[in-house]
């Protein structure tokens, strides 16, 4: 984690200090060959990143408000016959994209809540309360990391259709998406590692002051864990927003489907311009979220890499 903070720190100090030492040292930067060679490469990289990273989204934004005929006959021309804003209203009214985005929000919120509850309470119990059989549970959690979730599709699907104990199918119920999302061993493990590093003296002092486990959890551990809660939350929401196959299987009722399940279904039967407008609306929410929480996104990704490594 220190590495990421270090990176953030270096980034914040940025070009102001000359003490920054990397692969290419400040002294080298003063040499014209290095300055031009590397500077040129970096400018080329920036141009490439704009084309590759931003280009497809800009094209989508342009095509979303271009008449379908223009997009089909000359996709790279910029508004040869003016813009067509009716695509956007078509996506909103005919495709009803708002409903599917709302469904996605509902699914993402429930999945997030379930993941956060399971990960915080579970990690708190395993790390701070440390029951005798905690090691066994941790080992059982680690084992599930080796089983990719997609291979459990068949048993999970059969379980949701015919649940044991409760004899009521969960098909077309959001519980079928929310609850399995909670079974993320990765969340519990990174949360537990974070809790393990909280200073024990604070817990001891709180216990002496008479705080029970619940008070300890709510008033001390959770407030101290905001950074890790942010990271887990971002990944929970993003994963749920991206999920396709599981909601496709368990939510067969179109009025309950999230946007990523609905889009492929309507692809063939919708006017291309309207469809592209619907796709643009579908990725606006994650893009805006990314721009707002950019730092947490990038730090979280770096952190997950550091943990896996």
């Amino acid at each position, binding site marked *: 984690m220190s*590495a990421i903070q270090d990176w953030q720190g270096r980034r914040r100090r940025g070009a102001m200090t000359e003490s920054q030492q990397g692969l290419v040292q400040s002294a080298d930067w003063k040499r014209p060959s290095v300055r031009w060679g590397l500077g040129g490469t970096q400018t080329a990289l920036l141009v490439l990143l704009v084309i590759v990273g931003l280009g497809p989204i800009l094209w989508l934004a342009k095509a979303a408000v271009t008449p379908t005929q223009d997009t089909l006959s000359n996709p790279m021309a910029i508004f040869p016959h003016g813009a067509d804003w009716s695509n956007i209203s078509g996506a909103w009214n005919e495709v009803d994209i708002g409903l599917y985005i709302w469904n996605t929000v509902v699914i993402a919120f429930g999945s997030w809540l379930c993941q956060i509850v399971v990960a915080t*309470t579970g990690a708190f119990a395993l790390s701070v309360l440390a029951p005798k059989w905690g090691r066994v549970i941790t080992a059982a959690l680690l084992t599930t990391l080796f089983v990719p979730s997609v*291979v459990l599709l068949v048993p999970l699907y059969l379980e949701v259709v015919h649940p044991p104990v409760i004899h009521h199918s969960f098909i077309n119920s959001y519980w079928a998406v929310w609850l399995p999302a909670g079974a993320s061993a990765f969340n519990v493990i990174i949360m537990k590692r974070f809790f393990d590093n909280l200073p024990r003296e604070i817990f001891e002092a709180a216990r002496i002051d008479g705080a029970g486990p619940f008070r300890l959890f709510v008033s001390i551990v959770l407030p101290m864990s905001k950074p890790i809660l942010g990271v887990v939350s971002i990944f929970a929401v993003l994963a749920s927003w991206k999920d396709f196959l599981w909601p496709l299987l368990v939510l067969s009722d179109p009025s309950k489907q999230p946007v990523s399940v609905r889009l492929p279904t309507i692809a063939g039967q919708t006017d291309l311009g309207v469809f592209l407008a619907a796709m643009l609306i*579908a990725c606006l929410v994650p893009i805006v979220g990314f721009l707002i929480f950019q730092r947490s996104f990038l730090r979280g990704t770096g952190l997950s890499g550091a943990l896996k490594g």
Partner: protein
Amino acid sequence: MTAGAEPIQPALPPRPQTPPARARIRRSPISWIRDGGLSRLAFLLPLLLIFAAFSWYPIVRLVLISFQHTNEITTTWVGFQNFSEVLNDPLFPIAVKNTLEFAGLALLFGYPIPLVAAVLMSEVRKRRGLYAALAYLPVVIPPVVAVLLWKTFYDGGPGGVFNTILGWVGIAPQSWIQSTSQAMPSLVLESTWANAGGTIIIYLAALTSVSPELYEAASVDGAGLWKKIWHVTLPQMRTVLLVTMILQIIGTAQVFLEPYLFTSGGPDNATLTVLLLIYNYAFGNSLGAAYGQAAALSLMLVGFLAAFSLIYLRATRSWSDE
């Protein structure tokens, strides 16, 4: 109970009793409860219930189903019949070959690109955040939108987006995902675009942990830029590089979304992957779901990936933590 406000105050003893954790001498239910057993159980309960229901039980059930014929109502035990049916399915070798091809191509395209980009970006002194954000942008696009967007780009007619761009430099229109030979590379290209950003950010974080003293020492010894990359940067990053490689192989072995949405496994089964075959056994079969075969193939995939990971870790251990 002022614990919430100022918990750190060193409330020195008088300690009324020994801390509960150490008081476990007798093992009666009452002492267990007094010991905080109930609250420990209460905190563990969500985790235990959710993982039992949606992780541990399905894993066991996966193994059971692979030895059964089940149609949601009746279940019969069939021994290894599911496994032999899968192994004798003419589609099975095709799916394995295609999955290996996808993983291999993804390694070829997708492994060096993020590394080169990250090394270059780590030397950027101004607006590094902009570089990182641009590289990460494709990762936040929902994969379904990304695939459907690229499907439009891959339009095989002369008016397709990529074909128009190729036309600018005088290259004839390609058929992309409609051709058996180009379909798989096209899928890999989209997948690389969609995933490279995450790897770049991981590498950027790893690059900052390379200590500047090492670069300084290398400079003093007269090492140039390439020598520094080869002798300092890459060796310092080897653990991360090894981990991202195995994670990428494990991830691409489970590729589903791209073949399912781009081509449904076509043309002529050229993009039928193992996971798509599992899906077809279980959910894509109009004649009735073959859950047993799907479970058998899933189990073989897990077994293969676990064995591969173990061999990989064993083989690279000496190299990763010397």
